């Protein structure tokens, strides 16, 4: 697929941020280190890098490496999500005050919360509905991959719980549903054919 490389509001691409991360964040780049959008993305990319490293380490022992497209799809989703996006309102009684939390910060929070679960990787994360309108009902849509051998129903429930808890603590969104679709398994060893 030859889609143009998407850029963040600050002009950075996923490739630039990936290179910066790969170089251990040196030399220090103040335009990245003082940009919250870049920092949210760096954190998410670092987690994916750790994951791919773990899978590759496993592969050395027993398992096939994840296909590149699989990781690339996650990285593409991260890049899309980490843009600041909409401003989600937080209440304040004084009309002279306006408080919001960015959609990018909330999606990064969801990914961080999901990463606390062992054996599950979030693929895509979306807030569906008028999240920027106070009181509007919002659905959270998540896709995920589960490590082979881990219980899908339990992990799906745990994912819903951690996401609901995080959103309840850090936003004032009216969450109608947290929909989880497990659309992939990773770490599978085929007996006849390795994908």
């Amino acid at each position, binding site marked *: 697929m030859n889609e143009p490389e998407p850029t963040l509001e600050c002009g950075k691409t996923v490739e630039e941020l990936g290179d910066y991360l790969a170089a251990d964040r040196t030399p220090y780049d103040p335009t990245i280190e003082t940009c*919250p959008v870049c920092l949210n993305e760096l954190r998410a990319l670092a987690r994916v890098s750790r994951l791919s490293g773990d899978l590759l380490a496993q592969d050395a022992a027993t398992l096939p490496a994840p296909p590149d497209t699989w990781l690339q799809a996650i990285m593409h989703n991260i890049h899309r999500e980490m843009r600041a996006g909409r401003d989600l309102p937080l209440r304040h009684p*004084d009309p*002279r*005050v306006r*408080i919001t939390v960015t959609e990018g910060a909330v999606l*990064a929070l969801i990914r*961080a919360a999901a990463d606390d679960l062992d054996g599950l990787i979030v693929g895509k994360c979306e807030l569906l509905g008028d999240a920027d309108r106070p009181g509007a009902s919002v659905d959270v849509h998540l896709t995920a991959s589960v490590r082979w051998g881990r219980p899908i129903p339990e992990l799906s429930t745990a994912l819903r719980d951690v996401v609901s808890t995080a959103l309840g603590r850090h936003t004032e969104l009216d969450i109608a549903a947290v929909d989880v679709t497990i659309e992939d398994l990773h770490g599978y060893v085929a007996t006849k054919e390795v994908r």
Partner: protein
Amino acid sequence: MTSADPVDAGPSDVLTERVLAVAGVERVFPPTALTARLPDLVAALATGKLEPPSRVDVSDTDGTTVVNARIATRRESDTPRTARQVADTLMESLDQAAAVSIRIRVVQIT
């Protein structure tokens, strides 16, 4: 909530310190608007220091003191409560007689 001595709109460093002192605030980010960053860019050219200062931005628009803060909150905090405390802290720090507009944007929960 702590009471604070009112400050003039100018010293954004003072306001930044007060925001950073609010429980649950992890950091303050530089303002985004080019006009707000222009003095920093000029200073950067003069000093060779490229890093934009992370601070609360204070400006005057048609007689209204406009305060903008982009903040990161901690994951163990309660972000709405933290952000409201930031707004209250800023409000207390400003001249109560002046027209004021406060804008808090939580850009990272870390």
